[in-house]
């Protein structure tokens, strides 16, 4: 299989083979060509060369509709739901498209949707999809694919926005499907998931097939080495050795509609984690604090001085920045060049006198920050839309780093980022923390919280239910605190 976008050769000689009833993982760095290959299989993109065979028969797939007819289901890396339409209708959209029924089902549609959703999450199928949080939307996407009568199911980073809890539910479903003879292609950057859930793993690099193995035959480092093509060291940077320094940010009694009485402080040198289940309100807390949403009440101190944050522009002025969990919706400008994206938070940095933008400086800034994040892009002049998912995430992160902030609130910072780059980002965060930047990380990926953070706050139903430090940061403790009604139980853990 080959595919080029202009001079970018996304796929050189990619090949992939899937057997009935197996869960086959596809791994590779950001921009390795995984999504491109899947898009070709689903008929969204047309290959420049190569062929697809199903049951040994060569097939031509020229549209997603054709792919569906062949029994291929696809959960995309980028969430694509109709925001104004109810969850139920979103789930049955493909069905409606191919249905021979003339009329829409009424209430029965909602019941059927509820049934599909039940094993995954508790979501009201009558709500418009646009009102759901990103992770809930991700679950709807999965539910949508499950309604198809498919023989081949492609899941492109379905767990990137999910917590361990939901992910486990998904794996259960996947195993059930595989047992019924359905072949599943599973793309993920989480090594544990690949090795724990899948039967075989294929590694791609630079658009090429590298190796395919049974998971029982390989170790995580085999896979990672194949991905990056060289030896890698430890995944997480060392944690803070001495006790944290002065207080950078203190928040007291922050409250709004979806969270209450949130207090915490952020100290020099440490990385603070915020854990919890989907919908716990972690994103809301960060957005409330930065005035991006709602009208949160409460007091905030920055470097020991109490501040009144008027709006987000004011926050940026004071050096507080927030990375959104929804990179496509509000994280990046897909249609604008990478350089313009990275400069967006503070254009003065790339401007000369009288606010005249200096193109060379803008490009240089993009190059510099892009390099430090291992951004894989041909040129800073390219539109962000032409990047792979993980690289878009790096652009979103680069936007924040460009303003040299004092406090960074990161919502799912490494969502969709490959192992190598993830370690790189973690390293950068650690470096920033040591340099005196306050860092708060919201993550649904437990290993990230555990491996990266010096201290973890757990949120459940809009309240902070507990604080974990050092060796107490374990999967079990976090999950216990995160469970609904955890407030009562929190005493026992300390």
């Amino acid at each position: 299989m080959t595919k080029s976008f202009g001079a970018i050769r996304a796929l050189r000689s990619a090949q992939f083979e899937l057997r009935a009833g197996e869960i086959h993982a596809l791994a590779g760095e950001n921009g390795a060509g995984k999504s491109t290959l899947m898009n070709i299989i689903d008929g969204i993109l047309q290959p420049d060369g190569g062929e697809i065979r199903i049951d040994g028969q060569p097939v031509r797939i020229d549209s997603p509709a054709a792919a569906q007819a062949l029994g291929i289901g696809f959960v995309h890396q980028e969430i694509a739901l109709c925001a104004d339409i109810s969850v139920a209708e979103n789930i049955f959209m493909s069905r409606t498209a191919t249905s021979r029924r003339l009329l829409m089902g009424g209430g029965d549609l909602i019941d059927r949707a509820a049934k599909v959703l039940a094993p995954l999450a508790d979501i009201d199928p009558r709500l418009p999809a646009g009102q759901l949080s990103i992770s809930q939307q991700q679950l709807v996407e999965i539910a949508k694919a499950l309604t198809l009568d498919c023989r081949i199911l492609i899941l492109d980073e379905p767990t990137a926005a999910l917590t361990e809890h939901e992910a486990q539910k998904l794996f259960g479903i996947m195993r059930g499907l595989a047992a019924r003879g359905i072949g599943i292609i599973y793309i993920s950057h989480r090594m544990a998931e690949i090795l724990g859930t899948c039967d075989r793993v294929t590694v791609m690099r630079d658009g090429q097939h590298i190796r395919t193995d049974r998971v029982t035959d390989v170790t995580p480092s085999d896979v990672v080495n194949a991905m990056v093509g060289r030896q890698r060291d430890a995944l997480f940077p060392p944690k803070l050795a001495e006790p944290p320094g002065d207080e950078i940010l203190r928040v007291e009694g922050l409250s709004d509609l979806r969270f209450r009485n949130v207090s915490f402080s952020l100290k020099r040198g440490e990385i603070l984690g915020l854990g919890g289940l989907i919908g716990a309100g972690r994103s809301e807390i960060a957005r409330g604090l930065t005035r991006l949403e709602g009208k949160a009440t409460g007091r905030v101190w920055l470097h020991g001085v109490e501040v009144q944050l008027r709006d987000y522009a004011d926050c940026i002025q004071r050096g507080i920045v927030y990375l959104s969990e929804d990179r496509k919706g509000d994280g990046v400008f897909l249609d604008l060049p990478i350089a313009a994206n990275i400069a967006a938070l503070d254009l003065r940095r790339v401007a000369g006198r009288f606010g005249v933008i200096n193109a060379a400086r803008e490009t240089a800034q993009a190059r510099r920050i892009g390099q430090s994040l291992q951004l894989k892009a041909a040129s800073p002049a390219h539109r962000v839309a032409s990047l792979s998912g993980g690289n878009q995430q790096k652009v979103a992160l680069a936007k924040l780093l460009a303003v040299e902030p004092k406090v960074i609130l990161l919502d799912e910072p490494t969502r969709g980022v490959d192992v190598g780059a993830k370690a790189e980002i973690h390293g950068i965060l650690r470096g920033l923390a040591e340099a005196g930047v306050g860092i708060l990380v919201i993550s649904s990926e437990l290993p990230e919280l555990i491996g990266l953070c010096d201290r973890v706050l757990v949120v459940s139903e809009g309240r902070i239910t507990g604080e974990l430090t050092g060796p107490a940061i374990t999967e079990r403790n976090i999950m216990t605190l995160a469970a609904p009604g955890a407030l009562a139980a929190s005493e026992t853990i300390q």
Partner: protein
Amino acid sequence: MTATTPERSFLSRLFGARETGLVLIILVLFLIMSGASEHFMTWPNMRAMAMAFSVEAIVVVGMTILLISGGIDLSVGSVTALSMVVAGLLFLNGVNPWIAALVAIGVCAGIGAVIGFFVTVVGLHHFIVTLAAMVIARGLCLLGTGGRPLGLYNLPEGFKWIGIGSIGVIPVAIVIFVIVVAVFDFLLRRTTAFRLVYYTGSNEKAAAYSGIRTKRVIFLTTVLCSTLCGVAGVIYMARFGSAQPTFGVGMELNVIAAAVIGGASLSGGKGSILGAILGAVLLSLVSSSLALLNVSVYWQDIIRGSILLAAVTFDHYLVKRQAAGGRA
């Protein structure tokens, strides 16, 4: 859309949030007008008001569906005129008027297909393609008639009936209007085929990923809109007994305004036939009322514009409140 929201009040169950607001505004206007003029609440006046917008409302239906699919059509006015001109010319050349009408509607559908081709296959924006179509169709009208209106006074009574006849006390044009609106409202609310229009307009990519042939949907809604313009043109011809090459200049803004007041969004995925028709009723009601009250010409535009703005603002707050309440 509205079909899936939970427990709601009686009115809003009947109409949906958006429509309720409009119904309220229209009722208030009705009350005010009844007080202001004794002639307002009379059957002849109601009849005249209904006649005034019934044909254009057919175009509103087409435009609303097109808007929902994410498109727009600036050529409705000149395509309607072209329909009149084509049917009129054929009739004057001895073709049976019913066949002439069918051919005219077919020609309009053809124009819709050409617009659809440029939008879906070539990949241009509806706005620019239909702007060109607007100019070209107007040119065709001029070319066909030499700029002169066609006198079709000799149309057989049976044909004129669709424009000026009555069934009982109800004018045929209003009956046609009610049927078109009822049919398309039902289709759009309840059938799977028209549901795809919402999906396509709401998020074309998501729809395509779900196996919907979105280009086909967009193509068909484009053709439908032009076809309904053809139907409207034929009825206008029967009603006025003439075909005017300059008919319908500026119609597009009126029609789009009606759809938008009725809840359609210019970015697609939203809107309803009932809402759009209520929007058309509101606009028409304001015009008729100002005429009935014999308000000075120089004030009419100012009042119309202000009422339009006030209605949309009021409706906006109402929908927002209802939406907020619904979430509680």
